[in-house]
């Protein structure tokens, strides 16, 4: 398990290669990269700044990974989330999950993303033509997390 909160960019290929290095028992690696977009809620976004709660962030991410491990049989999980100022097109978050079987890798990867969105203490502030604004939480993200309890 690898959990990082960092300002630097990450390298998806290198992270996935690190998961599988020296192993021949992994059947599936599902991964996700979330990127900063140039538009949100109908406004152009020139840049965004990600703030977080140091200490709690790492705890919250570790708990999500523990929950995923309890729910599925996983072989390795990597979560990297960037903070600081990011430009449109910049990668924000990486989640990669290795498992013997693809169904578990896909489910766990999406589960971790859904709960990261609603549980991990990050906040985005966007720079738009109308000024700076804090991004509001989305009901669709709450709904995405809630469906795992169904």
């Amino acid at each position, binding site marked *: 398990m690898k959990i990082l909160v960092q300002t630097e960019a990450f390298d998806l290929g290198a992270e996935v290669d690190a998961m599988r290095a020296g192993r021949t028992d992994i059947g599936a690696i599902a991964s996700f990269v979330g990127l900063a977009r140039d538009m949100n809620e109908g406004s152009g976004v020139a840049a965004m700044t990600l703030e977080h709660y140091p200490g709690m962030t790492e705890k919250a991410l570790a708990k999500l990974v523990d929950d995923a491990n309890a729910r599925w049989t996983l072989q390795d999980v990597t979560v990297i*989330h960037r903070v600081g100022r990011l430009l449109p097109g910049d990668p924000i*978050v990486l989640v990669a999950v290795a498992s013997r079987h693809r169904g578990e890798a896909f489910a766990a990867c999406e589960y971790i993303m859904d709960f*990261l*969105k*609603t549980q991990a*203490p990050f906040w985005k502030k966007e720079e738009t033509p109308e000024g700076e604004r804090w*991004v509001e939480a989305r009901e669709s993200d709450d709904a995405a997390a809630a469906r795992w309890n169904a």
Partner: protein
Amino acid sequence: MKLRVLYFARLRERFGVGEESLECDGGTVADLLVQLRARGGAWAEELAAGRTFRVAVDQSIVPPDAPLADGAEVAIFPPVTGG
């Protein structure tokens, strides 16, 4: 009891403070919120009943009736928007 209280994101900006140490007489999160609202202004407005915010004690999100212990780290922040 003595608490360390942290504010993040929009609430940090509205309150003009990111962190403070304070004495709290009550024993729950709800008691602390009453005390903070009594400061008036942005405090009364943002922490009013019906406003949406989250409270974490010692880095775990808790409900309003959660107990507080001396020396606890309490954080108050808007719903999260990472990922």
